[in-house]
């Protein structure tokens, strides 16, 4: 029968999570994925024969509740050991964060770090319930929605007066100010600020949501540490897929949705199914889109079916990505000066200014002259990702604008790739000779390969004006949309992107309400 309870567009982790919850509650669910692999930006990819990685390369905030609810461990999900975070220094004097302590800095910074970490964990605890909950509608007087507000208020209040005041004070602080207040070591500041900035159009001195981003990333079981699952990030996707399929979900890859079918008659509009790019129509009681909001509303729904002000709010969403992806296939393990084993999450950003300057280039349309980046070697965590004895290096390179002045040409991409490798070679001098193959994906490339507008990490900027009950915009912030039968469940919805699962989880919850 060609009729489903729910069709989900996009088999990223959020689409799979939403599907699994719905199927577990008895729904007949079909997931349609445009590309040939599952996982969206977390999809495992063989970028060179025998060498695999995914765009997203580590997990920091995946929801423990979802792991339990969907029985992911029974389906093979296992996080490897927590990665140390290493701030690389070209003299080999690295700053290392491990097991809640920092080394490579002076005693003042070391003790300040303990206090800082405690503070941030306390604040993360306040926000924790927010991420797995539907946000209240603005102006709605529904009791349960008021209670959501009230419970956040109460948790804040329970912090006690001093901590509450401090929370309210730092919440919108630029990363730079927060770090300057707490630490002396420039490298430590850069490393700690990193997680507040990566993926956003934000630099250390930008006021906005950097602190909230950090707290969001501390929401999972790892309290903000990073790990790589067995099988790489793709391992998470494999387990989600397996759990979803066991619950009865049908998944079809290579099935690009061309448009969402909207029934239009005297009773108004309603989403009734989808039409694939090849013309096949599949009907359902509801359609849930894990594609980004611009793709969903402009390409799949069409503005003629939307309200004018709503359309223009979606239009103004900031979706330009600023992170490029570098993948290297290496014929051996690279040696980083002063590191015994490059098995941590290595950050190349000597100080906060270097991040700021890299952003300055990008904000005027150039790709960073001196890129800053985060590197992992996933094949050290899971040997199956590269042929025996060989390795994969994966790097998130910032800041690289989606809209490059003069456009993204092969030369521009190549020049950036060269600069990125040069930068790495400053810390791992022998690496050039080890490179068997290299690949650099600009945000424009990511847009094309991952089907995400702007190649944006969070589908759309994770910033104060685009979060919580404003994500992606009011009238679509509770997963339902102005079109009956159409829902959102991707990173463009609350709480946001990163491998977390909140949007998929919350959307399913709303649909099942």
């Amino acid at each position, binding site marked *: 029968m060609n009729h489903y309870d729910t069709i989900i567009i996009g088999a990223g982790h959020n689409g799979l999570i939403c599907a699994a919850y719905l199927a577990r509650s008895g729904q007949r669910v079909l997931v349609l994925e445009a590309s040939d692999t599952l996982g969206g930006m977390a999809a495992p990819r063989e970028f060179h024969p025998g060498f695999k990685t995914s765009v997203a390369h580590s997990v920091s905030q995946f929801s423990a509740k979802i792991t339990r609810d969907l029985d992911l461990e029974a389906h093979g999900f296992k996080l490897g050991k927590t990665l140390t975070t290493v701030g690389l220094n070209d003299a080999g004097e690295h700053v290392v964060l491990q097991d809640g302590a920092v080394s490579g800095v002076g005693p003042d910074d070391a003790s300040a770090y303990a206090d800082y970490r405690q503070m941030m964990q306390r604040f993360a605890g306040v926000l924790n319930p927010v991420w797995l909950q539907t946000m209240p509608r603005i102006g709605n007087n529904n009791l349960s929605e008021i209670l959501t507000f009230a419970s956040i208020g109460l948790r804040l209040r329970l912090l006690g007066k001093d901590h509450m005041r401090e929370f309210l004070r730092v919440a919108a602080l630029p990363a730079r100010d927060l770090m300057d207040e707490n630490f002396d070591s420039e490298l430590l500041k850069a490393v700690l600020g990193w997680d507040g900035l990566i993926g956003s159009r934000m630099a250390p001195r930008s006021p906005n949501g950097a602190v909230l981003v950090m707290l969001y990333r501390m929401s999972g079981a790892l309290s903000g540490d990073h790990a790589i699952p067995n099988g790489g990030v793709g391992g998470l996707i494999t387990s989600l897929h397996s759990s979803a399929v066991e619950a009865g979900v049908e998944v079809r890859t290579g099935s690009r949705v061309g448009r969402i079918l909207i029934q239009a008659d005297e009773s*108004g509009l309603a989403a009734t199914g989808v039409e694939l790019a090849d013309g096949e129509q599949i009907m359902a009681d509801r359609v849930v889109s894990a594609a980004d909001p611009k793709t969903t509303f402009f390409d799949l729904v*069409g*503005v*003629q*079916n939307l*309200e*004018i002000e709503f*359309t223009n709010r979606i*239009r103004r969403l900031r979706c330009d990505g600023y992170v490029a992806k570098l993948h290297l296939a290496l014929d051996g393990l690279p040696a980083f000066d002063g590191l015994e084993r490059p098995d941590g999450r290595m950050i190349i950003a000597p100080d906060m200014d270097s991040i700021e300057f890299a952003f300055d280039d990008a904000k005027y349309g150039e790709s960073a002259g001196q890129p800053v980046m985060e590197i992992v070697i996933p094949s050290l965590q899971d040997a199956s990702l590269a042929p025996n004895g060989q390795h994969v290096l994966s790097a998130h390179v910032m800041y690289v604008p989606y809209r490059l002045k003069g456009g993204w040409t092969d030369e521009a991409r190549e020049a950036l790739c060269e600069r990125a490798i040069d930068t790495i070679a400053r810390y791992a001098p022998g690496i050039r000779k080890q490179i068997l193959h290299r690949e650099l994906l600009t945000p424009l490339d990511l847009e094309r390969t991952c089907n995400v507008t702007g190649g944006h990490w969070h589908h759309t900027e994770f910033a104060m004006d685009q979060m919580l009950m404003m994500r992606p915009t009011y009238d679509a912030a509770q997963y339902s949309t102005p079109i009956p039968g159409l829902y959102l469940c991707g990173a463009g919805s609350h709480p946001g992107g990163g491998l977390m699962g909140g949007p998929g989880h919350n959307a399913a919850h709303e649909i099942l309400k």
Partner: protein
Amino acid sequence: MTNTEDRWAGERLMESHFHPRQAALNLRDAWSSWNGYKFANYYYDAEYEYFCIRNSCGTYDICPMQKYEITGPDAEAMLNRMVTRNIANLKENRVTYVCWCTDEGRMIDDGTIFKLGPEKFMLTCGSPCLAWLRKSAFGFGDVTITDMSDETAALSFQGPASCEVLKKLGLEGIETAKPFDIMHFPFQGGSGKELMVSRTGFTGDLGYELWIAPELALDLWDALYDAGDDYGIHPYGEVATNMARLEAGFIMPDMEFSEALKTIHFQHDQTPFELNLGWLVDFKKPHFNGRRALLQDRDKGPAYKLTKLDIEGNKVAEGAYLYSNRRCTQEIGYITSAMWSPVVKANIALAMIKPEYLEGDIWAEIYYQKELRQYSKVAKCTVKNKPFWRPARARATPPPGL
């Protein structure tokens, strides 16, 4: 040395394409402004101008009115999503009255859409609306919006003699134009220029609107005034228009409604249902802006309803509060526009009234002045369901006597 440069040049009111003629006739220099144009309040005597509209004919400058040309394969779809009425069935060379709303169903403005070709429309309205049109067009592939406000000369020509004068002007067959029809005529013989005439207006009477290229504006004026000389043709201004439209029961921005994009206070604006424009809202159309909110508003019933009142006595009820009892303890609404209507010979008004009180007594507490002394009275009001003034000639084709 004197400085001849006008340091206020950019601040001065613009002059309409008909200004030279209108200025000569504005004996009282009674100017106000509309959309940045110098615009006559009245020319000589507002009452006299009003009687021209009702008894002979008069011209009213609508150059300051906003005019947008909307063209392209997606023009109709774009407009149809914007306005509450279904324009899919609008035929070429026809005009329709429309309104458009915010997502929340609050009225932004009303106006008219002229269908000039399969993919060519003109939208006219009282206030600038380009920003909203641009927002409305976003996402539609092939729509071009051009602001023609300054590049079109437009003159409203209203009154029982208007058709006859147009015939005299040489517009053959103009009497066959039905209300809301558009006709095109060559102007000045073989000049290749055209005069567009629509049977539209804002007076509730027989009348037309004339549309022409700006360089021909004065020629048109002169020809029209020649043709109308024996009929007492006379320009009329804002005051006379306002009288005529109130008798016709038409709404006026800043009197009956606040344009929703300009209000600050939530719900200081109105829905079409409050303004009695429910007939413009076509729920058979699956989607248009504000539909969901308007459906709710319709089902819930509007908070106020625009109502036509006939008020006892002759004291004009301008600004009056309305009550359900003579002691004026239960307030039920307010007057939006009021006048003594010469043609109906009645004390008339438009009012916003809470619908639940429409069946009961309605009393207006009227304040008025006599030789600088303030007086007040409480006058009984009667609800009128039809326009105060709607002569058969306004709709007859051909108009009577032609």
